[in-house]
């Protein structure tokens, strides 16, 4: 087990061009599942490869277990890595693939069989040991890659989008398994993905990256509920947070908090509320102060469990501003294109960002009319 730390880590591929990774400071916790999340090209892979020792940093330090490892080759960093393509050795059988790191690390020969069996049992691939990688399905390959990674009991796991080659259904179950597996072995893990669902579901903490810089580090709940800036606010959540620009502020609220006023406790007569409670249409209990907004619905996406309404605000301070609302399909209210409705946002759900720096700031009262 070990802690991975980076200090002002920077990678510039071509002199004069912006860095792929810029001044990244981060520190894992013992046994943590840390996720690097960011859009494609944000430098996640480069950051991970520097930690692995596959890429030489332009500047900055990498520490594993408290020691600077910049000068160490990958094999001396006590890490294991699972590549996006799995990088299984195509000419070797599954057994030979898994035993390869043991041989390379000069583990005693007597232990090989036992360790391979332990790793393959842990991942349920015991019956595949004689096959070649090309005879395996995507899910099986991924397990073999994991088995090869754990077999020498590394102090850190590095995984670069290991699920992105699987189909959607397999991906969900593999995610689950991978998470369980990590909890069981308890090895510090860094996991790269561009998929926010994956990041939220698996990560103990999430590092949100954009253009090579860290935008926020926090638990899934923190990055979702308290985004550090507008990038994080809009990168997470689907549809992204609604943003309204004022003179020196940007006000944001999530689509699932932008709701028909009739469906929020405290907005109708007591009778009405009682009847709605019965039909489970009530979405928010008493939320305190709320901001009323008029919403012209333009089109509707039906997603099964929920509906997404896209449209624009009417009147008020932000006429014509495009916004979206996400409401459960259980709400039977009908919304048609070009109809105008009374919506509200609980004031406690408003996020405020400085317009210049785009960083989040303390809530302020702003005039809505």
């Amino acid at each position, binding site marked *: 087990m070990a802690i991975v730390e980076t200090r002002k880590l920077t990678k510039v591929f071509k002199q004069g061009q912006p860095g792929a990774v810029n001044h990244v400071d981060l520190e894992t916790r013992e046994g943590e599942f840390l996720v690097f999340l960011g859009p494609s090209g944000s430098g996640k892979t480069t950051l991970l490869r520097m930690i692995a*020792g*596959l890429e*030489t940093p332009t500047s900055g330090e990498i520490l594993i277990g408290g020691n600077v490892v*910049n*000068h*160490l*080759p*990958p094999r001396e960093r006590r890490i294991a890595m699972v590549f996006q393509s799995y990088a299984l050795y195509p000419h070797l059988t599954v057994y030979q693939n898994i035993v390869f790191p043991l041989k390379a690390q000069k583990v005693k020969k007597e232990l090989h069989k036992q360790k391979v069996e332990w790793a393959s049992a842990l991942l349920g691939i015991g019956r595949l040991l004689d096959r070649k990688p090309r005879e395996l399905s995507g899910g099986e390959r991924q397990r073999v890659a994991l088995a090869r990674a754990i077999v020498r009991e590394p102090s850190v796991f590095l995984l670069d989008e290991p699920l992105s080659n699987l189909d959607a259904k397999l991906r969900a179950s593999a995610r689950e398994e991978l998470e369980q597996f990590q909890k069981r072995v308890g090895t510090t893990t860094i996991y790269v993905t561009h998929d926010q669902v994956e990041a939220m579901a698996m990560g103990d903490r999430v590092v949100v990256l954009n253009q090579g810089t860290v935008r926020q580090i926090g638990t899934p709940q923190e990055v979702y509920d308290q985004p550090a800036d507008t990038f994080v606010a809009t990168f997470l959540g689907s549809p992204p947070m609604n943003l309204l620009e004022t003179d020196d502020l940007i006000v944001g609220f999530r689509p699932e908090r932008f709701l028909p006023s009739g469906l929020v406790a405290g907005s109708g007569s007591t009778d009405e509320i009682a009847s709605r409670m019965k039909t489970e249409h009530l979405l928010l209990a008493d939320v305190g102060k709320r901001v009323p907004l008029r919403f012209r619905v333009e089109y509707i996406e039906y997603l099964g469990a929920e509906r997404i309404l896209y449209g624009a605000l009417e009147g008020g301070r932000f006429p014509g501003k495009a916004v979206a609302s996400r409401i459960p399909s259980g709400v039977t209210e009908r919304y048609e294109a070009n109809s105008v409705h009374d919506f509200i946002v609980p004031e406690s759900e408003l996020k405020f960002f400085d317009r210049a720096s785009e960083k989040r700031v303390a809530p302020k009262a702003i005039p809505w009319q």
Partner: protein
Amino acid sequence: MVSGTGRRVFGGLVHALVLMAFSVLLAFPFYWMLITIFKRTNDLYNLQNNPFKFNEKPTLEHLQLLFHDTLYLRWVANTAFVGAIVVLITLVLAVPAAYALARLTGRWGERLGIAIFLTYLVPPTLLFIPLSRLVAILGLQDSLWSLIVVYPSFTVPFSIWLLMGFFKSIPRELEDAAMVDGLTRFGAFVKLVVPISVSGILTVVIFSFTLVTQEFVYALTFISSEAHQMVGVGVPIFLVRGDVYYWGSLMAACLITSLPIALLYNLFLDRFIAGFTVGAVK
């Protein structure tokens, strides 16, 4: 890749040394040709002289001899002539055949393609004896036309093979779209596939031409008179008078002929290699 700094420096040194050793070993004869061309005869044949430097003033006498007193230019012209016509024949035969085998005839077309490729392996040194007789029967002995008839035997099979790979890499939808838009299959081939494949066809042109310039056995066998020789045979055989080698002129002929061909070949190398790897590299 990261490793200890010392080891990296050492690795870099070994790398540079390997490259240097091979470059010198492989390119040395051409360097030596270059030096020899401009050396005076006395300088060449004096054992006391350091052969790596000019002990007497450089001279153009060997070049003059080559261009004025030998048939070198004639041989070059012969080679160009044969090369041009062989390229033409190769294109006419190989382009449609490759397309047909790649696209129109399904699985057994593929098999036939491999069979044709295998004929490329049949060497001139197996065929030249019967061919010399056939050439005589056709009355083509000592004529450039004998070479023009025979050379497609190795340019066509390999060109078909190269072009098959090329045509297969063109998305089928492109032709389908052209046919939906009103072209016939053959029309799609002529108006769409051929223009798209210009670079593949150019590869075949260069490849066939350089093969013609490199051929030795057939030209040596079929052509007897000095005036009808190809450059690849004329230089090593006819530039030697009796037992006397005119090394300066010989080296000039070698270098002047080799360099343009080498440059041309080098440009298209990657495509030839794709043909040679028989699909063992994806």
